[in-house]
C-alpha cells in the first residue's frame, strides 16, 4: 500500500468502512466539540500545544524510551531482536503517552473533570497520574473482576487521587467499564472529558489516540536507523484495543516492513475463550464505531477472555480493522500458555519482566523467528512492564507468593 499516511480517517471519521460515530444523540455535540478542539490544539498547534506535550513526554514520561538490542534473546531466536522499551516510560507502559495528551487537551478545553475506563489498570494509572499532574478531578471505571485481578494498580490510582468505581454489570471487565464510562459521559457531558484508553470508540478518538501514540513508531524509526542504518524487517506488537500496535506501526505503513498484530488466543480460538477479534471476529458496531468484534449470530457482543486483562476486550480499533482487510498488517494470535512461556523466557534471558500483554507479542516473535535469518531485524514493542502481573503469573505457574 503506497502513501497510506495522512489519508485516514476521512472527513466522516472512517477508515474505509470502519470507524464512524455510533453514539447516542446526547454525545454527538460533545464529540464534535472534541473534534474541533483536537484540530485547534493538535493539528493547528494553538498555544504551542505540541511543544508543551513533547516537553511533558521528555521530562515527565522520560522519552525517548530506549530501543534495546536484546543480545541473549537474539542469540536464542537466531535473528536481531530489538525491544522498544515502553516498559521504561513513566509508570511502566505506553499508556501515559495518550493519557497525557488527552488530559492536556481536556485542560485546554476548560474541562475540570476527567473520566476513564481501564482493564489491566495501566490506562487508569496513567490517567490518574496525568490528572494529578495537571490538577484535574479523576474518576476511573473498572470491571469488578479487573479490580480484583489488578489490586496493586487500583491502589496506585487511589494514591494519585483518583476515584476508582468498580463496575458489576455484564462480564465485569473492560467492555463493561467502557459502557459505564460512556453512561457517565452522557450524563455529565457538559463538564466532563472522557479520556478513552485505546485507539477505539467514536471518531475522533481512534485518530487522537493514534496521534498521541505515534511517538513510539517515530522513535523506533530514528533509533533503528541510527543503530542499524536501515529499517527493521518486522515489527511485532500485541493488540487489545490496539493503541500500542497502531503507535508502533503507523510510521512504517508506507514502508516495506512486515507488521504483526498479536491478539489474545486465550485458551485457544476453538474454545471460544479468547480475545482475538481480528483473527476470529466479525464486522460489527461496538462502543461507537464499526470495527471487528467478537459477537454471536444475532450481533450480541460476546465476552472476551485472556489471562492478560489489557487484552481482554471483544473488539479492535477501526484503523487496525481496516489495515487487516487491506492486508497491510497480519493478524495472528497466541495462547495464554505461550504468552506465559515467553514471559519467563524474557525474564530469564534478559532480566526484564514484560507485561502479560507484551508477552503475547514476544510469544509470536519466538514463532516468527524460525522464518527469519541471522541478519534480519525484528522489533518487538514491549508495551509495558510485568510487575503488575507477577501475582497472575505465579498463580498460573502454581506458585504461592
Amino acid at each position: 500500500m503506497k502513501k497510506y499516511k495522512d489519508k485516514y480517517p476521512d472527513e466522516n471519521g472512517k477508515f474505509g468502512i470502519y470507524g464512524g460515530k455510533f453514539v447516542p444523540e446526547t454525545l454527538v455535540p460533545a464529540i464534535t466539540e472534541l473534534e474541533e478542539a483536537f484540530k485547534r490544539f493538535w493539528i493547528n498547534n494553538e498555544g504551542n500545544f505540541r511543544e508543551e506535550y513533547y516537553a511533558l513526554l521528555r521530562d515527565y514520561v522520560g522519552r525517548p524510551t530506549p530501543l534495546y538490542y536484546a543480545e541473549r534473546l537474539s542469540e536464542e531466536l537466531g535473528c536481531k531482536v530489538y525491544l522498544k522499551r515502553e516498559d521504561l516510560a513513566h509508570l511502566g507502559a505506553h499508556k501515559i503517552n495518550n493519557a497525557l495528551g488527552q488530559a492536556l487537551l481536556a485542560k485546554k478545553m476548560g474541562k475540570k473533570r476527567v473520566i476513564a475506563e481501564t482493564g489491566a489498570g495501566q490506562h487508569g494509572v496513567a490517567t490518574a497520574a496525568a490528572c494529578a499532574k495537571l490538577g484535574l478531578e479523576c474518576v476511573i471505571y473498572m470491571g469488578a473482576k479487573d479490580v480484583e485481578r489488578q489490586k496493586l494498580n487500583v491502589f496506585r490510582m487511589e494514591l494519585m487521587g483518583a476515584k476508582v468505581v468498580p463496575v458489576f454489570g455484564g462480564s465485569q471487565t473492560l467492555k463493561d467499564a467502557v459502557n459505564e464510562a460512556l453512561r457517565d459521559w452522557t450524563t455529565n457531558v457538559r463538564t466532563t472529558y472522557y479520556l478513552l484508553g485505546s485507539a477505539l470508540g467514536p471518531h475522533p478518538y481512534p485518530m487522537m489516540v493514534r496521534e498521541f501514540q505515534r511517538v513510539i513508531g517515530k522513535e523506533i524509526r530514528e533509533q533503528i536507523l541510527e543503530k542499524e542504518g536501515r529499517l527493521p524487517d518486522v515489527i511485532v506488537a500485541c493488540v487489545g484495543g490496539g493503541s500500542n500496535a497502531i503507535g508502533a506501526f503507523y510510521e512504517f505503513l508506507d514502508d516495506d516492513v512486515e507488521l504483526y498484530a498479536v491478539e489474545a488466543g486465550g485458551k485457544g480460538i476453538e474454545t471460544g475463550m479468547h480475545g482475538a477479534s481480528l483473527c476470529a471476529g466479525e464486522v460489527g458496531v461496538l462502543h461507537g464505531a464499526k470495527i471487528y468484534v467478537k459477537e454471536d449470530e444475532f450481533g450480541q457482543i460476546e465476552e472476551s477472555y485472556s489471562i492478560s486483562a489489557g487484552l481482554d476486550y471483544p473488539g479492535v480499533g477501526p484503523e487496525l480493522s481496516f489495515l487487516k482487510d487491506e492486508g497491510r498488517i497480519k493478524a495472528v494470535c497466541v495462547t495464554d500458555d505461550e504468552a506465559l512461556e515467553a514471559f519467563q523466557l524474557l525474564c530469564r534471558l534478559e532480566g526484564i519482566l514484560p507485561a502479560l500483554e507484551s508477552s503475547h507479542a514476544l510469544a509470536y516473535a519466538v514463532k516468527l523467528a524460525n522464518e527469519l535469518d541471522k541478519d534480519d531485524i525484528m522489533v518487538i514493542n514491549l508495551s509495558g512492564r510485568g510487575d503488575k502481573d507477577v501475582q497472575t503469573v505465579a498463580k498460573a505457574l502454581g506458585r504461592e507468593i
Partner: protein
Amino acid sequence: MKLAEKFEELKNKGEKAFVAFYVGGDPNLEISEKALEVICKHADIVEIGIPFSDPVADGITIQKADVRALSSGMNPLKAFELAKKLNEKFPNTPKVFLTYYNIIFKMGEEEFVKKCKESGIAGIIVPDLPIEEADSLYNYCKKYGVDLIFLVAPTTPDDRLKKILEKCSGFVYVVSVTGITGAREKVAEETKELIKRVKKFSKIPACVGFGISKREHVEEITEIADGAIVGSAIVKIVEKHLDENGQIKDEEKFLKELEEFIRNLKEGTKKKAKVAVKN
C-alpha cells in the same frame, strides 16, 4: 396502525399519547408476551425493546432487563414473532422496536426493515445511530413504509435539530435530560426548552422520554408535548416481582400491578388535554 394515524386519532379525542416501553423476553418470552398484551390494551403506542448485550444509552434498570431477556434465550427473530402475535390481537396499538444498531447491522438493514414491515412494526428507534450514520437505514425505512424515529437531546444545537427533524417520521423522541434512561424525580426545565425548539421547526409529534416515572410527570409533560414515554419505571415493576432465580413470583399479581400502573399513566394524558380543550 401507522403512528401518524394514532396521533390523528388522539388529537380528535383531545388526548395525548402514552408510550410504554417493555423489553421483549423479560424475564422470559412467555411472560413478556402477557405483559405486552396488558400494555397494548391501555397504552397508545408500545415500544418493544430487542435486548442488546451492551445498551450504552440505557441505565442499569433496562440493562438488567436486557440481561434477563438474553439469558432466557430472547433474540431478534423471536422479537419479530412476538410483534406479529401482538399485532394480530391489537392492530390499533402501533408498535415500535427499540434496539441498538449492531442488532440491525448484523441481520442486514434491509432484511431487518422488511421483517419489521411483515410483522406489523410501525417504527424503529435506534439510540446509538445518529443522523450521520443513518442514510441507508433511512432509505430502507422509506422503501418499506416504516417510520425511523430519531432522538433529540438538550445538547442538540438548532441547526442539527432541523436536520434530524427533516428525516424523522412517526414522532420525534425527545430525550428529557442529558443522561441515560432511569426514573428521576422532576421534569427538567431544559426539557421544556427543547420541546419549544422542536415545535419551532417541525409539526412532527414530540414525545418525551428518559426519567418519566409517574403520573404527575406524564401530566406535566403532556401539557406541552404530544406524548410521554415511560420505560424504566415499567421495567422496575418486573424487577419488583422477581424471585431469587430471576423469574416472576406471582404472575397474576405482577400483571395486575402492571395493568394498574399503565392505566393510571394513560389517564394522565387525558386530564390536562381536556382542560386545554375546555379553555
